[in-house]
């Protein structure tokens, strides 16, 4: 901007002041010295964290993640030092957070949906085999505890064992126990000729080798093998499982278990032994999710109730919120601020907390509502199938209307008063003004919020779980589902029943629900686009 122009404009003092302010803002946006320093410090912190993360990741040999972190760090630096990447400066933080908190989570959930991850299929195959072999060890009946000293010869570990008769024997992973020429400390052999005794500190340094070390007690395998869990006592174990050539054999029963690709060793008659391991199972989870016979009947009414719950919640909270917003927006209303603050209170209390409080108040025999408000009546607020649905709705509306009240107040205040006056001049009554002018204008800005509110309530797990836990139970159903369960809480009960955690199935259901909500939202957004043409 040329100086002459500025001077010319500055003849009008008000414009000059505005101009001054604009220049200040432009200056700051362009980067004053303070801004530059702040930017450098922020970037320096980001870079320091990135460098630290790279070092940590390198130490864990996580090369893939390391490459991503490094690439993102370099990209961020380039964006903020380049003069050409102005839009990216505004977009970068949001995109990074979107990628970390939304896209990654979605993709990961999707990935889990195609695996059998869950109880019994929790880790890798190696871990499963190790766990199975470990738990198949049995103490040889009536065998004593042997005091033991871990010894070493040319890097090979051995166990120096003292028998109850006071005999000293030494053996290694290859050689069974044999007599040794040993020195005793009290009753325990502490060192042997040709072997170096390991002190406790040395034992700790080679813990994994020692845990894995097992020494044959004699040439007869039935005598079992000695191993020491704590480095000071050894015990004799026999194993009932043998792992060889990718099959497990139960030596007691002779049953052979094969790896048939389902993520667990399976016998010919179909019995699996767990733990198994995590494998990809393709679309099995999705097939199970939609063909589970136990679900056939409950799924219908749970889906219907989920839609009813989400729709009624949105409709009623919007109606109440809008009504209150109009009332408190009235010019003649006094003490608006106090009323408004009070109305927002339910919104400020964490929903799970209020749900628990409501559950207490709605208790049939002892609750506040029955005892005080209804004078001791026994109204089954939470235990009658229909009344429980009403109760869930009441609580959810109580929780949700302040939000609608807030957004409606905001939207109403942005509608110019002139429109109201013009309508009055044209002879429209209050209802007509509201119905024909205010409501359509409101919906332009509120409709997207109503859609997102629907999506939120479709999955409103907290309220249902905390208030009724889906109850009262439908005891005629073969799964533990209740009359106020919505889809997401039903899924929780199916995938996480008792001690079974089926993350794969849960992810599959989640994706199905996501698709339903996404389709509804897309259709609704399309339809609300027509509203925008009003402006």
């Amino acid at each position, binding site marked *: 901007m040329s100086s002459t122009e500025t001077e010319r404009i500055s003849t009008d003092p008000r414009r000059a002041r505005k101009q001054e302010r604009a220049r200040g803002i432009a200056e700051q946006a362009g*980067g004053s010295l303070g801004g*530059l320093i702040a930017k*450098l410090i922020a970037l*320096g*912190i980001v*870079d*320091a964290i990135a*460098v*630290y993360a790279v*070092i940590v990741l390198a130490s864990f040999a996580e090369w893939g993640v390391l490459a991503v972190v490094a690439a993102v760090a370099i990209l961020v630096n380039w964006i903020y*030092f380049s003069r050409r990447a102005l839009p990216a400066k505004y977009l970068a933080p949001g995109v990074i957070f979107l990628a970390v908190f939304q896209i990654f989570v979605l993709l990961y959930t999707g990935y889990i949906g195609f695996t059998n991850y869950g*109880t*019994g299929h*929790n*880790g*890798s195959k190696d*871990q*499963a085999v190790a*766990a*199975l072999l*470990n*738990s198949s*060890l*049995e*103490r040889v009946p009536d065998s004593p*505890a042997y005091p033991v000293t871990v010894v070493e010869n040319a890097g090979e570990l051995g166990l120096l064992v003292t028998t109850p008769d006071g005999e000293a024997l030494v053996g290694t992973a290859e050689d069974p126990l044999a007599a040794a020429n040993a020195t005793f400390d009290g009753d325990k052999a502490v060192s042997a000729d040709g072997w170096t005794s390991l002190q*406790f*500190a040395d*034992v*700790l*340094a080679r*813990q*994994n080798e*020692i*845990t894995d070390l097992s020494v044959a007690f004699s040439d007869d395998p039935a005598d079992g093998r000695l191993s020491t*869990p*704590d*480095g*000071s*006592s050894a*015990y004799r174990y026999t194993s009932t499982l043998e792992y060889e050539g990718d099959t497990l054999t139960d030596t007691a029963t002779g049953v052979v278990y094969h790896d048939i690709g389902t993520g667990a060793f399976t016998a010919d008659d179909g019995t699996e032994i*767990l*733990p198994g391991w995590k494998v990809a199972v393709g679309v099995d989870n999705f097939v199970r999710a939609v063909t589970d016979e136990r679900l056939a009947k409950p799924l219908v009414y749970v889906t219907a109730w989920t839609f009813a719950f989400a729709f009624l919640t949105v409709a009623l909270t919007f109606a109440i919120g809008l009504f209150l917003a109009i009332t408190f927006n009235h010019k003649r209303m006094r003490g608006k601020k106090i009323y408004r603050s009070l109305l927002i209170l339910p919104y400020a209390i964490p929903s799970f907390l209020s749900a628990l409080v409501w559950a*207490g108040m709605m*208790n*049939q*025999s*002892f609750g506040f509502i029955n005892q005080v408000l209804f004078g001791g009546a026994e109204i089954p607020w939470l*235990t009658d199938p229909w009344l429980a649905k009403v109760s869930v709705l009441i609580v959810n509306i109580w929780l949700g209307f302040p939000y609608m009240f807030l957004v409606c107040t905001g939207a109403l205040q942005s509608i110019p008063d002139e429109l109201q006056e013009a309508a009055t001049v044209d002879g429209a009554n209050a209802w007509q003004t509201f119905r024909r002018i205010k409501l359509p204008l409101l919906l332009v800005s509120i409709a997207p919020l109503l859609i997102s509110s629907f999506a939120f309530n479709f999955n409103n797990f907290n309220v249902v779980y905390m208030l009724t*836990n889906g*109850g009262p*139970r439908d*005891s005629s159903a*073969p799964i*533990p589902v209740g009359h106020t369960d919505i889809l997401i809480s039903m899924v929780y009960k199916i995938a996480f*029943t*008792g*001690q*079974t*955690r089926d993350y794969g199935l849960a992810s599959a259901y989640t994706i199905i629900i996501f698709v339903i909500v996404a389709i509804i939202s897309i259709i609704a957004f399309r339809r609300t686009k027509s509203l925008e043409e009003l402006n």
Partner: protein
Amino acid sequence: MTVIKPSRAIAALSLVAALGLAGCASDTAEKPAEGSAKPAPSQEQEAPATTLTVWVDAERVDAVQGAADAYEEKTGVAVDIVGKDTGDIKDDFIQQVPTGEGPDIAMGAHDWLGELTTNGVVAPLELGDSAANYMDVAINAATYDGTVYMLPYAVENIAVLRNKALVADAPASYDEMIQAGKDAGLERPFVVEQGVEGNPYHLYPFQTAFGAPVFGVSDGGYDATDLQIGNEGGEKFAAWLGEQGAAGNLNTDIDGDIAKQAFLDGDAAFWLTGPWNVGVAVDAGIDVAIDPVPSPTGEVAAPFAGVKGFFLSSESENKVAATDFLVNFLGTEEAQLDLFEAGNVLPALSAAAETASADPIIGGFAAVGENAVPMPAVPAMGAVWEYWGIAEAEIINGADPAERWQKLTSDVEAAIG
């Protein structure tokens, strides 16, 4: 502008370089320092840098810390006690052990064992000869499928808390208990935690009095294929539940808080609950006595025992040190008494239990616990919990006892498969 540009770029580059270098420098400077600092004392004290990570219930950190410090002093193995929310330990342990990020040791309850072993995240724990030093119920609970997986430290069971000011003497039977309370002028003499979905854990003593355990017992522990719940005794118990529900002695509207309030206010003289609720009653100034669960039949009413203990991770890199710490350190009377003082729950080690039982309240629970049976840890139990409570709740609220109890049995059978 053009004058500022290069200087800005230089300032920027030098600042970033400085910060970056500072970051690197501090890292590279710290690393050798750490590396050189750690081997140094290890050469002096001959203690390598082994660290055991132990997850404990946040309320018991201090109790374990004593044993941890003593162990570190003796062996040079650092023990890092991490306090965690009890509710998170099991699932976090199951999820994190396979990734190698889990702890070496975690504190938990014996009924997790089915789930932990099915997931292969616990390693067997050899107690050796010290197994004989623990109470039988503790060792039984720590054993799953014939193998011991847990170092037990506490045994918990429910019993009846009696308000001595209202009823002076322990009743001999269930009916006497109700009568004694009514004689004292109470409308609801006896409370027990229920809820909309029932609470079979708290009603189990009555069920055993009718001779209907959940599972039969075989050599390796509970036999999930031998479901006993639906036997003749079970039906009698169901009929009794119906009667008690109709008489108002059992009420599914009474949850834990309401039961507690009724006892604290003196509206109820008897409260069937666990040691975790004794503190609040004593603090409220109530003169509490601990009674056995009065039986409705004359047979012993045996509650479930819950045994708390420590599990060893199957992926631990420090199994030798961890086993040594658990068996030879937390298994000592001193450590068990420390844990007892932190939680006021009966120690699992017999010698420590005897010392602790000098307290009349702990002794009271211990006496009831002599009849207690470990809560089944088999995965099938999960299916039982799913259907058990709601069936009892519906019977209490007037469902046909025999019919509903048979449906419970068939539901559980179907779910176990």
